[in-house]
């Protein structure tokens, strides 16, 4: 069983949803990313998403855009990102890691070689924002061969007919983009999730994670009441961005502040279904 499947199976046994914190590789430097990754599982992260910086992130709001620019300045390449994962895996062989990014850097690295290297580094899944199912075959084949889950995205605009196309051959989990918009801008209402998530579930047996606009423990709890995991990105990045010194380095103590934020989000997720029938 893959790490992703094992982790979602364990969450199901525990009767709770999971938390997926996001960190942009090398924002603002490699050491920060490594320290956050090392701290995430202990702070309550169930899976981890790592952003692969790209110069032109068309689905991201200003927060993640700037994180990407800092990441590129901080030396992020796909090679470095995989190396960071390799380091993490020496100490943690259970927490699933999903890489999120855009297609061009992967294409430039070489799709086959990237899948080989990512799998051997200990990556479990890939989310490629600008690669819809219609264009995905080139990556889906080597990803399948190397047992990497190619995580499919579903949006509020994905109508019932298209949902079948999107979920055909999906693996790992399904990522529900909870708003029609870019990252870190708006937050979906619980009412929307209550209507939308069952629609996705009706089309797949895979776990459903929700991202875009999940900022607070309360949001995370609302997501956890309906879905299988909550992804939090911009809220964590905002904390980091607010704690940079003039040279663009993270101020002392910030890692701990971010991990505290993850703890609070994890508590939100874990407390969400208390009092409800398991």
């Amino acid at each position, binding site marked *: 069983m893959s790490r992703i499947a094992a982790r979602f199976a364990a969450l199901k046994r525990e009767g709770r949803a999971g938390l997926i914190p996001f960190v942009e590789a090398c924002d603002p430097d490699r050491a920060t990313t490594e320290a956050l990754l090392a701290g995430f599982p202990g702070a309550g992260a169930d899976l981890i998403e790592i952003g692969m910086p*790209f*110069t*032109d*992130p*068309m*689905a*991201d*709001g*200003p927060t993640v*855009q700037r994180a990407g*620019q800092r990441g*590129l300045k901080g030396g992020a*390449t*796909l090679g470095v990102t995989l190396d960071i994962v390799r380091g993490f895996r020496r100490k943690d062989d259970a927490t699933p890691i999903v890489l999120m990014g*855009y*297609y*061009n*850097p*992967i*294409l*430039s*690295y070489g799709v086959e070689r990237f899948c080989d290297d990512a799998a051997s580094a200990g990556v479990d899944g890939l989310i490629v*924002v*600008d*690669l*819809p199912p*219609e*264009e995905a075959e080139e990556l889906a084949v080597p990803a399948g061969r190397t047992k990497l889950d190619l995580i*499919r*995205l*579903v*949006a*509020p*605009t*994905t*109508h019932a007919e*298209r949902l079948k196309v*999107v979920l055909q051959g999906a693996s790992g989990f399904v990522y529900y*983009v909870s708003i*029609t*918009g*870019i990252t870190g*801008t*708006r937050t979906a209402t619980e009412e929307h999730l209550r209507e939308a998530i069952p629609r996705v579930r009706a089309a797949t047996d895979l776990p459903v994670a929700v991202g875009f606009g999940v900022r607070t423990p309360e949001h995370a709890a609302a997501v956890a009441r309906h879905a299988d995991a909550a992804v939090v990105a911009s809220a964590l990045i905002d904390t980091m961005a607010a704690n940079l010194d003039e040279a663009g380095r993270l101020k002392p103590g910030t890692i701990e502040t971010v991990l505290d934020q993850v703890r609070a989000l994890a508590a939100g997720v874990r407390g969400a279904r208390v009092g409800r029938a398991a």
Partner: protein
Amino acid sequence: MNKPLPNSLRTGPDERGHFGIFGGRYVAETLMPLILEVERAYEDAKRDPAFDAEFRRLLTHYVGRPSPLWFAERLTAQLGGAQVWFKRDELNHTGAHKINNCIGQILLARRMGKTRIIAETGAGQHGVATATVCALFGLPCTIYMGATDVARQSPNVFRMKLLGAEVKPVISGAATLKDAMNEALRDWVANVADTYYLIGTVAGPHPYPAMVRDFQSVIGTEARAQLDAAAGRLPDVCVAAIGGGSNAMGLFHPFLDDASVRLVGVEAAGHGLDSGQHAASLSRGRPGVLHGNRTYLLQDEHGQILEAHSISAGLDYPGVGPEHSWLHELGRVEYVAVTDTEALEAFQLCTRTEGIIPALEPAHALAQVMKMAPAMDRDAIILMNLCGRGDKDIFTVAEALGVKL
């Protein structure tokens, strides 16, 4: 007679929007249903004679088509070789070829029931053309323009505002055309229900490259008929400048299956192809994925997109339309590059010998004509697309020539 050649190059793209390996639809899932809707609506419009009739009516009576075909006799004499003919799309309403496409797409947006228009612009020509058709149709529009371009193209910014458009300066990235396109895509993702994205060039996700080409093909179709009437023959060479590549695609497409016609696309070499400061995606880039399509891009070894440079803001883009990438690899079109300096020389020559102030974009095409014409026979014909007028560029040119206005 008039039967398509067995291996026609004019039938692309395939049903998924691919020109060979290029093109396609590389967008976030949120946009995919909408992109597919645009495609369905366009396919439907193409089959509707009323849509075409309305498009033709507006081109004739609003844009001022057909644009003239002009034999540049004094320039020809000065170059001492092939005859140079200009397709004068600079005489269109709003001063460039951009309006042809805007007319087509605004009709499509209206047909789709969209009530808000967004667009990206570099030099501001597409922004002005979009703001113009939005004024004509009474639709609100938001134009995204890199903050750098807002600063260097202030007359066009003011024009757009006069026309009622909201101009949003984009400060992300390098604050030029590619960043404006990113920002327009982000706006679209957030406003899918009521908004139509009016892309200005033959790039972006399918169906835009094919649709923009179809609307711009009026250039080549007219020129072909006009030259036939004036000279009774096909041109030997067609030359056009390439940024995203819409004016070139519009000129070339009707000639793609005429093997005797050489097609030459002119990219911006900026400070020189080896200077690292140019916009020559085909000459110096390699295939990748950006802004919804697979095409040649300026990128570093890690697949990060590089900034383009050209004295012409309209050519200052690190990508190129996917059909050009395909034609490049097939070898059907030759892609060459011309520097800022060469374009400036051509700009001045055209102004003084023909009394036409060209935009810096077609000045690149003319610089290539100046290289080719002298070595060709006097009865040979070069057809060049004079795709825009230079009023917008006089400040840039003055600065480059060291003149204080």
